């Protein structure tokens, strides 16, 4: 069994390419269904504005699993492999686990200590579990990662800064507007990210909030939460943009909805009043050319995060503490994961010993017929205890060895399989034994 991670992140992939691999919650069922078709059943998709990553656990070779996942990414997102192959990050086993711990600890985020990532990891696990794609190993891995994230938030100062896109937006808006109470926000798309970003601005004193969403009722709901008002989606592109000072665009549209050509006449009507556009949608909602318009300041997710990146790096000491926690949790998971690798061997060994006992009880049972039921039970318990006693230490050693705590420079699991003549298939049913003869000389059980 191999545990692997493949994906594209802000470290290696520009937003122009990353947005083509965006996998919103609405498309996730289809994605898991497609993955099932590719023969990968235990998989979790983590899709955020910074990354699109797949964590998979499968009984196939490393190369075969990589090929399968790359093919899935290419076919599902309609992007030729050659366009993204060089941007892919591929990690297996220990590296894959360690990477997820770093992601959950927000150490892999562009903004160290950002608060959203933990919720996004939790959501990814929930979506995979709901669709039956998070198996025992991945569930354990993600739970360990969530635990890591929580520890980092509570035990280090990295979480106390709580830098996020929302904070970055407030910081940048502060370079344009001096009095937030007079600023007007227009929210395009009533998603979680826009809500979080708007909430930061409202906390800074913004009083005038208008929400526009394709589903009007969702706009109304968010507007009530933020103490603002709702607007029809189409009106937002006219009066909304003309009146607003800050626009938060976070719709699920698959392409840009604000272009230079439709903003230009609006900017003329605004008479040079600055317009700060925060495009946190992936794929982006606003054509990058909009930034060439005078008095328009367009920032997408990467831009905002770069703006506060420097502030976050100032907390390098806190990051070091978080890194140690992530490493500790990775080791804890790997201990469990490797011990789990020895489970089939242990099961086979137990089955093998049980079968020997059963065989002997069957052979010698007739000779004990004269004994009372109580005595026969005593003998059977004694045999079972002997068997357990014999197996106890080898099983403990096997577990410790698998978890990496062993001192023997060989794999005890392999040695056990070899010594006991087990075939390693995992069922434990097919056991090769020396022939055992019945009292009458006929072989009781003999398998080659």
């Amino acid at each position, binding site marked *: 069994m191999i545990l692997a991670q493949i994906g594209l992140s802000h470290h290696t992939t520009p937003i122009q390419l990353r947005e083509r691999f965006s996998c919103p919650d609405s498309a996730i069922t289809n994605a898991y269904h497609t993955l099932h078709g590719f023969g990968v059943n235990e998989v979790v998709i983590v899709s955020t504005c910074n990354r699109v990553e797949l964590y998979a656990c499968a009984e196939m070779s490393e190369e075969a699993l990589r090929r399968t996942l790359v093919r899935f990414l290419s076919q599902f997102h309609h992007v030729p492999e050659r366009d993204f192959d060089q941007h892919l990050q591929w990690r297996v086993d220990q590296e894959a686990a360690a990477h997820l711990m770093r992601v959950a600890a927000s150490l892999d985020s562009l903004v160290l200590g950002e608060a959203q990532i933990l919720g996004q990891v939790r959501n990814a696990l929930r979506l995979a579990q709901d669709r039956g794609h998070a198996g025992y190993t991945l569930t354990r891995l993600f739970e360990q990662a969530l635990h890591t994230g929580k520890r980092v938030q509570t035990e280090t100062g990295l979480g106390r800064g709580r830098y996020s896109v929302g904070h970055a937006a407030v*910081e940048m808006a*502060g370079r*344009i*507007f*001096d009095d937030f109470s007079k600023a007007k926000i227009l929210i395009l798309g009533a998603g979680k990210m826009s809500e979080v970003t708007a909430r930061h601005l409202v906390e800074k004193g913004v009083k005038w909030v208008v929400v526009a969403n394709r589903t009007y009722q969702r706009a109304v709901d968010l507007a009530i939460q933020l103490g603002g008002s709702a607007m029809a989606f189409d009106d937002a592109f006219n009066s909304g943009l003309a009146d607003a000072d800050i626009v938060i665009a976070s719709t699920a549209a698959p392409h840009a909805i604000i272009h230079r050509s439709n903003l230009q006449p609006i900017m003329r009507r605004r008479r*040079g009043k600055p317009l700060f556009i925060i495009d946190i949608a992936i794929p982006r909602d606003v054509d990058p050319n909009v930034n060439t318009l*005078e*008095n328009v300041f367009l920032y997408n997710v990467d831009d905002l995060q770069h703006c506060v990146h420097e502030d976050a790096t100032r907390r390098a000491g806190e990051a070091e503490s978080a890194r140690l926690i992530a490493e500790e949790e990775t080791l804890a998971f790997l201990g469990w994961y490797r011990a789990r690798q020895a489970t089939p061997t242990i099961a086979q060994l137990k089955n093998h010993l049980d079968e020997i006992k059963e065989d002997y009880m069957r052979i010698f049972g007739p000779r004990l017929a004269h004994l009372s039921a109580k005595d026969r039970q005593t003998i059977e318990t004694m045999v079972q205890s002997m068997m357990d006693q014999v197996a106890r230490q080898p099983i403990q050693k096997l577990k410790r060895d698998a978890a990496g705590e062993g001192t023997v420079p060989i794999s005890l699991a392999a040695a056990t399989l070899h010594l006991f003549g087990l075939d390693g298939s995992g069922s434990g049913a097919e056991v090769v034994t020396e022939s055992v003869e019945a009292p009458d000389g006929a072989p009781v059980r003999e398998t080659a």
Partner: protein
Amino acid sequence: MMGPFIPLNILALLLYAASAAGYGAGLVLDAKNAPIADNRLRLAGLARPLLLMGIGVQVAATGAWCVSTHLSPFAAEYGTLSVLAWILALALAAADLKYHITAVNAVAMPVACLILFWGLMHSDRNPDETSLLKSQAISVHVLCILTSFALFALAFGCACCYLLQHRLLKSRSVRPFLRRLPPLATLDTVAYQATAFGLPLLAVGIGLGIVYMAKDRPGLTPMQWIFDPHNFIAFTLLFLYALYIVARLLFGWRGVRLQYILVAGLVLTLALYMVPNVTHHFQARSTSVSGA
């Protein structure tokens, strides 16, 4: 001519220079650990008192001049430039105290220092003792013009910071030492207020000049007077700032283009100081004494 005002102005210059260094150092050093958009400088806490002390010392220096010479400070280029530096420092201090635009002061304080330094360099010239310069109307004329220039210089500083901040925001750049630039809205407000006060003062100054010309220089025709390069530029300057105020106030225009008007305004102001005067001078001399 050496009096107590020279050492006092030298002291004021040193205080201004120290204040400028404090604002500048704050802009560079404090910004490393500063959150974005927080335009208050910790070192400004030191620079601000130095600036206020410099202003106080200059008041004493100007008073000493008036007492010892019985002349208006505008009777000599030194005194005029000294007053200009004082008004600019006063405007910067007021703007800093109200809006905390310390980054603008980091840029503009060296200008005040240069003006005062330039005045001190010319302190050996004898003052013009014509009766004209004892006239209160001419003193008000010069004072109004100088105050408007100081305010336009402040507006220019804000406009430059605005353009720099605008460029940084456009390029999504976060240079550490430029993080302390004030928000665009603050810069726009301060520039507007400085111009809104400066424009009427310029108009009053020019108006008093016209009254003087009509009353005491009857030999000059209006055409001669208007096409004097100095006066022509002064009118262009008035028109330019009026254009800014009208665009801002009546049409509600904001943004980058208006800042270019303010930059052009200061360039014209400098040109006003540089161009030769044909008609704009006091009777006793062939060149302008006041420099206004």
